[in-house]
């Protein structure tokens, strides 16, 4: 393993301290317990608190700021944060209109946020994000995982909260956006947790993992590497299949937001190649991409690979996507 690393145990603390210093006009980083908040808190809006294991940067702390999150609770790498972190973040923000937890659907995140929600004295609600099309949902599984669609939930609900939306309407919008998002990822390599020091999974040089999760956890199948066009075609088909399962009607008037998200080890140029191939395939379905985001937004440490997320827009969601946002990793109009 080669990494920029001192003592692996201090990895998270050093990285978060750096984030705070690099964006000191936007962020405050708190330790013991660990949470990150906006520099200036507005307690009179719904307070959006997200969090999850570290290693997915810029998710979530990179999305704290005007028009998006108020606070984020980073756990250890790939390990959910603990309830005391969420409670401390809410206490610090002193929400007068309630706190909204945005949680990716992983059993650890769900349980830790659930315990925080039970123990905090503030009014609160939770949105569970589960946009991953790779996991075939059934009543027996933990269910679909939350992946890059989380960025769209955080951006749009953040916009509504910034513009005076109450807790109930924020929950409703978040659930609707989640329902309209579907993602699928492909890994070309494994990833290495700094503290563990060796790759999370083994994968041959000429193999890919189709349907990989953002912790390198396996997905649908292991297969031979092949031309990108054919991989992207399978990705888009998996998403369209997932939309069908959700009873989301697609027509030639459908407007889509597409995120091509890198997992941390894939060059931006390859992400744009995926975007190009995806647009060609979508035009075959007569579907229009009207908003886009290409880059590393929901990563899995140093994993090579990418995910594609499609969100079926409506006017409300499109408007909330377009409103000004000013965070460390997403900024427009402000």
């Amino acid at each position, binding site marked *: 393993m080669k990494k920029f690393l001192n003592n692996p145990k201090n990895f998270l603390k050093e990285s978060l301290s750096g984030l705070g210093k690099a964006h000191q006009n936007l962020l405050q980083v708190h330790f013991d*317990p660990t949470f990150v908040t906006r520099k200036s808190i507005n307690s009179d809006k719904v307070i959006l608190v997200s969090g999850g*294991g570290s290693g997915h940067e810029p998710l979530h702390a990179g999305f704290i700021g005007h028009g998006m999150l108020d606070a984020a609770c980073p*756990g*250890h*790498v*790939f*390990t*959910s*944060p*603990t*309830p*005391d972190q969420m409670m401390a973040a809410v206490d610090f923000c002193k929400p007068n209109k309630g706190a909204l937890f945005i949680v990716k659907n*992983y*059993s*650890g995140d769900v*349980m*830790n946020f*659930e*315990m925080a929600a039970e123990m905090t004295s503030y009014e609160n609600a939770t949105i569970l994000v589960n946009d991953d099309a*790779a*996991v075939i949902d059934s009543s*027996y*599984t*933990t269910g679909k*995982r939350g992946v890059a669609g989380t960025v769209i939930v955080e951006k749009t609900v953040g916009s509504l909260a910034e513009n005076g939306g109450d807790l109930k309407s924020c929950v409703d919008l978040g659930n609707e956006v989640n329902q309209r998002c579907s993602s699928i990822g492909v890994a070309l390599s494994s990833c290495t*947790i700094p*503290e*563990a020091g*060796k790759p*999370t*999974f083994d994968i041959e040089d000429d193999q890919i993992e189709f*349907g990989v*999760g953002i*912790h*390198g*956890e*396996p*997905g649908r199948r292991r297969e031979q590497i092949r031309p990108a066009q054919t991989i992207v075609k399978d990705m888009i088909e998996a998403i369209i299949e997932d939309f069908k399962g959700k009873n989301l009607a697609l027509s030639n008037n459908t407007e889509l937001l597409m995120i091509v998200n890198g997992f941390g080890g894939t060059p931006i140029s390859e992400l744009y190649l995926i975007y190009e191939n995806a647009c060609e395939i979508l035009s075959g379905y007569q579907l229009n991409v009207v908003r886009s985001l290409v880059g590393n937004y929901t990563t899995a440490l140093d994993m090579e690979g990418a995910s594609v997320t499609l969100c079926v827009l409506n006017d409300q969601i499109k408007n909330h996507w377009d409103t000004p946002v000013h965070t460390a990793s997403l900024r427009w109009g402000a």
Partner: protein
Amino acid sequence: MEILKYIALIDQAINENESEIEGLDRAIGDGDHFINLKRGITAIHSMTDQLSTMTVNEQFKMIGMKVLSTVGGASGPLFATFFLEMGKHITDSKPSLKIIAEAFSKAVDGIKQRGKSDVGQKTMLDVLIPVAAKFEELASSNMSTQEIASDVNQFAIDCAHNTKDMLPTKGRSSGLGERALGHMDPGAKSCQVMISAVCQHIQGE
């Protein structure tokens, strides 16, 4: 109850099984289970002085809160629930085996509710639930404590092995489907290691 001694034994046993637990988690999980267990145990060790002056139920409660705030992941709230529930049901410093067995069952029930899971889903519960039932059954028999410890130890080992043939439907490996067949569940394995550490110590007493 010598909780601090048991924690030390568990720590030693977890270390001895590091490569197996880590290997299983890398194969069908996400590779952080051992690190998380280790972080929890280290945090408990750091409170030894405080804990040594406390009553048994205070010890369980303090260990539970510490695990809740240091471990994280799925195992944090689950193990924390176990200790917090044990603390609710064991108030005597020298509880009978029957009381310990009942408390263990209730604590396992707490894990089941927190994780919204049950037996047969390839998780830690595939060791904990059958072991709790076995322990309760044996605790009300005429067997000696040593004999019970010996039986529970062997039974826990068998239960952990049985998870090899289970399809994962809960937890981090549930995306794997049939590819997880042939591997023991890492959470089931680590629970067995902890149970065995305590049982083997009692057997030798």
